[in-house]
């Protein structure tokens, strides 16, 4: 039976259909999880997609984290379920406390919209298990607040525990330690600013997002 991936839809999300499409391309089942429903509907994995949830009012993710669905997402993650936050979804997961640190405005106040190179620095996570350690992936970015920051103590912890899964080859936004994506201590929650769902076909300029999303589907097929 195909794995079921739930994609959270907040008012202001705008990458949800790209994620549904990418999951289906890889043979998974994908469905929308409505922000107002306090359930993840028994799915095997959750993606919090990109966009501008609740208009990014106050701070990106600050209001989305109080949505009814987020209680269910947090409970799902705490029980070991695979959860991935992409771009605005990464911001939501840090605000919800599922991932450490925060995302600030980009260095130089520059909105970045381009394709970047990412180095896979850890394959021990639900989003990188099928990728090759040290390999370089070409994946689009599209954000204003993607400048990852955290306390020096937290940065040490992330490094020592091998929690930085993806780093920029050429840092586009000022993120500390070139961080593009991190995982939690349980390795089942990943947040990243780049958009793997937009790199699923050579027609789109790259299909380097496939090993990442197929990792998630592999994690989804394992009973939590």
């Amino acid at each position, binding site marked *: 039976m195909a794995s079921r991936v739930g994609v959270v839809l907040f008012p202001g999300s705008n990458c949800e259909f790209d994620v549904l499409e990418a999951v289906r391309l890889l043979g998974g089942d994908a469905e929308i999880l409505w922000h107002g429903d306090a359930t993840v509907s028994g799915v095997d994995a959750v993606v919090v997609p990109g966009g501008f949830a609740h208009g990014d009012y106050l701070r990106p993710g600050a209001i989305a984290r109080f949505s009814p669905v987020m209680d269910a997402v947090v409970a799902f993650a705490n029980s070991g379920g695979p959860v991935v936050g992409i771009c605005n979804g990464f911001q939501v997961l840090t605000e919800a406390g599922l991932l450490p640190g925060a995302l*600030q405005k980009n260095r130089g106040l520059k909105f970045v919209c381009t394709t970047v190179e990412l180095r896979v620095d850890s394959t021990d996570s639900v989003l990188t298990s099928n990728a090759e350690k040290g390999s370089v992936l070409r994946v689009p970015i599209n954000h204003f607040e993607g400048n990852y920051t955290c306390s020096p103590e937290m940065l040490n912890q992330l490094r020592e525990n091998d929690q930085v899964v993806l780093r920029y080859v050429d840092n586009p936004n000022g993120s500390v330690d070139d961080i593009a994506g991190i995982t939690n201590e349980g390795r089942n929650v990943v947040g990243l600013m780049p958009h793997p769902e937009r790199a699923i076909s050579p027609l789109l300029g790259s299909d380097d997002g496939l090993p990442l999303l197929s990792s998630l589907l592999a994690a989804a097929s394992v009973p939590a």
Partner: protein
Amino acid sequence: MVGRVWDDGPMLFSVQVEVSLREGVADPQGSTIERSLPHLGFDGVRGVRVGKSIRFELEATDESAAVAEVEDLCRRFLTNPVIEDSHVTVTAVEAAR
């Protein structure tokens, strides 16, 4: 109700929360403003920091209860403690009823 007077109820407070980036956190908006000031002839400006101000009214039994509630509100919602600090000013307006 003996001895209860008309204004012995919750009080109304005017609240101002100033949210700023924590010391040591880079402030790209502040530095961009600072860099552009010399173009307008303002050469002596230093240390520009950009924050936001949030104002609202709050009912509470007394000032310390009001401050405690606003500080909880700041910690849980109005600021991201990883990168932001808040400064709270609470002023009694009048008896709420």
